[in-house]
Every structure is written in structure tokens, then in C-alpha cells.
């Protein structure tokens, strides 16, 4: 546990100092909103369109962070240092998952209000939307960290991460969009089916956290 905390704090400290991931993610998201505004020729979004634009943007912005999450370890020899220490391999994975969640939450804290200002007429469902986003972030982080650890050991890592991650993330997308759609419906938000989709999101998170827990030892060994 203390190793998890130490690695997470270390990553956050480095991010705060270098600002490599989060500002880029935020800028990317806002620019993408603008692109969607013109691409769809819409100034107001609701329902499935709003859910889709928001989630797709978050997803692609997440890839920016996922690409970089293991780079410091691989390039600067940090991986050796952690492997030498009496530290569980899964502590490293958990720290990376946690770091990604933090980055995504910060991203959404900034980008979702901007999205609401740009496109939404109705803001009342933003609170339950936050829950949907949180569960989606956890799933994104779990899968992203695992894929990043595989790709960082390879040659074409910037290409491989989106290539492998995107299909893996489709069920997450399906569930998150289906949950968000009624929340962002024109008129009043509806809450009927949200619970089902939250359950699917939760299931996705659990499955991929477990998979990561089971296989990460083998990713680290040499």
C-alpha cells in the first residue's frame, strides 16, 4: 500500500512539475468540441448526440495520457528501480491506474462544464453524469494502463496504444453512452435505465481490474 502511495505521489509530482499530460488533454478536448460543432453543424446537443460527442472526446483525450503513463518508467530506468525494490508488481499497476483516474477526473472537471456551456441547454443531470463518467474513467484507466504497459515495451508504441485500446474500450463506450443519453435528453433527464448501464460499467471495471491484477506480474518480469 505504501508503495502504491509513493509511486502515485511521485507521478503526480512529476506531472505537476512537467505538465506533460493534463493540459494537453484539456486543450485537445476543447478543440475537439469546436471541431464537432462544425463537423456536425450543431450549436446545441442533447441525448445520444451529446453523449457521443462528450464520451468520444474524453476517450481520445485519455489516449494522450495513456500513451505517456509508463514512459518515465521505461525510459528513465524507473522500472528497474521498482522491480528491484521489495514491492509488489501490482502496486505499480494500481498506482498507474490511480494516476490515470486522477488525470481524467481533472480533465472532466474542466471539460464537462465547457461542454455544457458550449452545447447543453439543460444542466440538471450533470451530477449523475459525473457518476457515469467516474465509472467510465476507472474502466479507461484499468484497460489503458494495461495496454500501455504492453505497448511501451515495443517499437511502435504511440501507434499501438490507440490501435489496441480502442476496440477494448468499445463496451465501455456503449455502456457509458447508453447511460449518459437519457441524462442529457432534451427536456427532462430520465433515470430509468441508467442503473442497468451503470451495472455494466461496473462489471467492465471489475473485469479489467481483475485481468490486470492477474497478468501484470508477467508484464514486468524479464
Amino acid at each position, binding site marked *: 500500500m505504501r508503495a502504491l502511495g509513493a509511486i502515485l505521489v511521485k507521478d503526480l509530482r512529476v506531472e505537476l512539475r512537467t505538465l506533460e499530460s493534463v493540459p494537453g488533454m484539456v486543450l485537445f478536448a476543447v478543440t475537439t468540441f469546436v471541431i464537432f460543432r462544425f463537423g456536425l453543424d450543431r450549436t446545441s446537443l442533447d441525448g445520444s448526440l451529446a453523449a457521443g460527442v462528450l464520451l468520444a472526446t474524453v476517450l481520445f483525450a485519455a489516449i494522450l495520457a495513456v500513451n505517456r503513463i509508463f514512459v518515465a518508467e521505461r525510459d*528513465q530506468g*524507473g522500472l*528497474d528501480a521498482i522491480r528491484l525494490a*521489495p514491492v509488489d508488481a501490482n502496486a505499480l499497476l494500481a498506482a498507474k491506474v490511480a494516476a490515470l483516474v486522477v488525470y481524467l477526473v481533472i480533465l472532466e472537471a474542466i471539460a464537462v462544464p465547457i461542454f455544457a456551456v458550449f452545447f447543453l441547454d439543460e444542466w440538471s443531470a450533470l451530477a449523475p453524469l459525473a457518476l457515469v463518467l467516474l465509472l467510465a474513467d476507472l474502466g479507461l484507466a484499468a484497460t489503458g494502463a494495461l495496454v500501455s504497459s504492453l505497448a511501451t515495451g515495443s517499437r511502435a508504441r504511440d501507434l499501438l496504444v490507440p490501435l489496441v485500446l480502442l476496440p477494448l474500450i468499445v463496451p465501455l463506450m456503449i455502456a457509458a453512452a447508453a447511460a449518459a443519453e437519457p441524462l442529457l435528453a432534451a427536456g427532462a433527464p430520465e433515470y430509468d435505465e441508467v442503473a442497468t448501464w451503470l451495472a455494466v460499467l461496473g462489471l467492465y471495471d471489475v473485469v479489467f481490474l481483475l485481468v490486470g491484477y492477474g497478468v501484470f506480474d508477467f508484464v514486468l518480469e524479464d
Partner: protein
Amino acid sequence: MATSTKRDNGVAEVHDAQQGREPPAIRLAGLWREFGERIALQDVSLELAHGDSLVVIGPNGSGKTTLLRVLATLLRPSGGDVAVLGARLPREAWRARGRIGYVGHEPLLYRDLTVSENLRFHATLYGIEAPERRIDELLERVGMSRRAGELTRNLSAGMAQRAAVCRAVLHEPELLLLDEPSAHLDPEASELIAPLITAGAGRTCVTVTHDFRAGLAAGGRALALGHGGWAVYSGPAEGLSASDAEAIYRGALR
């Protein structure tokens, strides 16, 4: 310490007179390691008692770094018996990890953290509580107290190396594995780190170096690794002439 050399089937083995009394710090029997088609280490056998020092020499690419990384539990052996600090590798690697210190080619420090942040991070990984005093003391001894607050990316190679040595000995390891620890270091800096990395009571050292006479001077042994095989030399360094040293070095080449 009485040693004898036995030649068996053309392979020399060294038997330590203390064998059998307490488990040695390192015991290798037929260690080999391959990378795909390439065999980096072939059938290496060795025993090293606690408190002893071993110097590893050989031409580039002869597997010195590979051997060190296997001992550090960073690489799995492809075959053979390997026991480090009583832990059989690779299954029991976790038992040895907290007691090993490793200085490699990379300083293993995060470039965007300061020296003291790096050392504190490592202290937490090794479960050292309240490490500030130890960190300050180590930095003082290697002459880096004033650079403690600098980002590692701004350090010269020599300073980074000194910080790396601090990182390696921070948790007072029983076994020190050093891959050319004096690289990038001027003679003065080498002298500063020397007391931290010599073998003695409670500390066994395996050092890869090109200056093995210094290593042998401490009463240790030399393992010469070559592309054709390997051999162990033990004995006083005083009687060694430069050409003898050369012969040992080249002897492993065939």
C-alpha cells in the same frame, strides 16, 4: 581462506573451504541465460561467501551486465541453479529483493525529481522510516549535500552516478552489485564512494570493472567472463604483473 582449483572436464571450479557451514551469499551452478538465439551466459558456477568481494572482468558483450542483472533478480535465469542470499531464483526472488543494492549503467533516478526526492522515494519503496538523516548523511559523504535540491536532469553524469550509489546503499543492503561504479567519476569522487561500496562484515560485493587489480587488492576473487567460457582467479594481487593481468583477461576470450 584456503581455496583450491579443481579442473573437471576442462571446467575450473573453485571450492570454498567454508562450503557447507553457512549458505553462501551467492551460489551459482550451471547458470545460463539466453536472449532468443544468443547465449549470454553459459554454464557459470560460482560460490561467494558473505563479506567477500568478487570482481567481474571481461571484454564487451561477454555477459558481465547480464550476470549482474540475474543476481539482482532483474533477469530470470534460463537454466541452472541460482541462489542469492539464500533465495532460489527466480521463484523466491522476493525474499532477496530488499537486501540487494544495485548500481547499473543507468542511475535509475527520475529525471524530473530532485536528488532528495528521488532518495526519499526509494526509501519509501524499501520501507525505511524517517530516512532524512540517512539521506543527508549519505549525500554528505559523497559530497553532494549542496546539490540535494537539484533536479536530476540537471546533474552531470558524475553527480548522477554518485546519487545512484547513494540510492543503492540507502537501505544498507547485504549484497551490493555494481556495474562499473566508477564510470563517469573522477579520482576524487571515486575515493568518496569507495568506502560505501567495499566488501566487509555484513556486505558482499560483486563489481564489474575494468580495474580488477584494485578489486583483487581487497583480497577478493576475479571472475573472467569471455565469449568462449569463463574462469575464476583467486590469489594475491601483489604478485600480479601487468602481463599476467592481461593473460587472465585474454584467457577468457577463447
